[in-house]
């Protein structure tokens, strides 16, 4: 059951007025332009025990993604495909109102949107995750841990998942007849992802449309729209969020602003991932 949240981040009225007044002048309280994305930093291999990992900072939003590989049997209807599982945890240490316990509806929604972007874009190559067709496959567990919340977790989660998958190298396999030996200590050059995907979130506050909202902007936003893109500009996922509604021209404008922000993110990813 989904209940209107009662523990939402409260922004003082004065601050809200300030944010709106600044937006009227075409600037944001953190000094950005309306269509400007925050500074991004990525640290690959941050968690050494994972097969691949990445720490992503988007402003002060910090998320850590780790990839673990497990040997499993394939599903009967997809003998030539491995498996991908995305999980997002909103840790209580990340923000005052985040509570311990199993993933709530927000965490589940985040995980499912990231999962769909990776899957539907065919960025993650499930056929590379096969050890013996019909017998043994890899399940790639992508666990995304939100460590500090400063708005726009979704974009950071997609970035961290993509970066962690690029940081993942499949272990070496030796096949002798019916037997397979998996040598976890030795890595191949095979990575489970074909090309990058990014998610860009735009928010509507009053009559203004901004990209990559920070925590205060997100807390007073009426509605958000997140769009996932591939490098060639295909739309590979979309999710509207919050209780507001959008005019059709808002949707149009958000798609345009998000598509150009996506280009910025791909340029950044290029620097960190040697694409």
């Amino acid at each position, binding site marked *: 059951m*989904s209940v209107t949240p009662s523990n939402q981040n409260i922004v003082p009225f004065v601050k809200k007025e300030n944010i709106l007044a600044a937006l009227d002048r075409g600037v944001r309280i953190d000094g950005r332009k309306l269509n400007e994305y925050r500074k991004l930093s990525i640290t690959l291999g941050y968690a050494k025990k994972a097969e691949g990992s990445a720490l992503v900072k988007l402003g002060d939003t910090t998320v850590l993604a780790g990839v673990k590989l497990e040997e499993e049997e394939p599903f*009967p*209807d997809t003998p030539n495909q491995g498996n991908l599982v995305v999980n997002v945890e909103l840790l209580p240490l990340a923000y005052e109102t985040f509570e311990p316990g199993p993933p709530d509806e927000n965490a*589940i929604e985040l995980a499912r949107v990231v999962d769909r972007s990776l899957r539907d874009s*065919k960025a993650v190559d499930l056929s590379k995750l096969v050890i013996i067709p019909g017998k043994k496959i890899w399940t790639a567990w992508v666990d995304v841990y939100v460590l500090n919340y400063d708005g726009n977790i979704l974009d950071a989660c997609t970035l961290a998942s993509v970066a962690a998958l690029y940081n993942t190298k499949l272990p070496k396999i030796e096949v002798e007849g019916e037997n397979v030996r998996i040598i976890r200590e030795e890595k191949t050059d095979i990575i489970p992802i074909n090309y990058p995907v990014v998610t860009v979130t735009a928010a509507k506050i009053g009559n203004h449309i901004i990209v990559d909202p920070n925590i205060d902007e997100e807390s007073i936003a009426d509605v958000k729209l997140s769009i996932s893109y591939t490098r060639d500009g295909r*739309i590979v996922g*979309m999710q509207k969020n919050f209780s507001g509604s959008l005019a059709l021209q808002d949707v149009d404008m958000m798609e345009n602003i998000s*598509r150009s922000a996506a280009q910025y993110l791909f340029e950044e990813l290029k620097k960190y991932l040697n694409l």
Partner: protein
Amino acid sequence: MMQVQKPRLILENGLRTDGRRPDEMRPIKIELGVLKNADGSAIFEMGNTKVLAAVYGPKEMHPRHLALPDRASLRVRYHMTPFSTDERKNPAPSRREIELSKVIREALESTVLTELFPRTVIDVFMEVLQADAGTRLVSLMAASMALADAGIPLRDLIAGVAVGKADGIIVLDLNEPEDMWGEADMPVAMLPSLGQVALLQLNGDMTPEEFRKGLELAQKGINIIYNLQKDALRKKYAEYKEE
């Protein structure tokens, strides 16, 4: 080893697997006030997809500390009955149902005038009785009709339809094979007379041009559904029912 092949979705004659044209919707049936106990209820059918929705409230929120001082809370559950699908669905709420309950709640919050009922809660329950593609939108529409049936003030009814891409062609109101094998699925729900989008999701793969074309096609479908919804509401009050 069982490996299912993708079937052709658009046939030689340009029609879809169920005989519809690409821009043709499935037949719709709406029935209001179907449950005795609920304050409002509706059954919404679209082709073989059938959803029952019921509304209770506004009523006092318990526990009290969860109540909102300035508006009503919405408590929303989207649920699939175990017998609504080909293979039995475990009745425990899945991650999908948890996500859809949230998405539907947010869509309903864009139309319910919650600020008229501070400190209260409005319960909205949806049970999918038959699942055959498009359950989230049929559920949302059933819920909006049940809210109207309960006399809860709304900005507008919600009408929604999925558009998608099947064998490269933009199609309206996906059927199950298109949902499963098609290249894209984009559910769109609007407050039609206000021209506002209340729900928008996309999974699959579309170019920005296809996305805009899809949005336009969805709007066409939404306007047709909106008229059927208004007819159903009018009919309820035009008809004399022996109690």
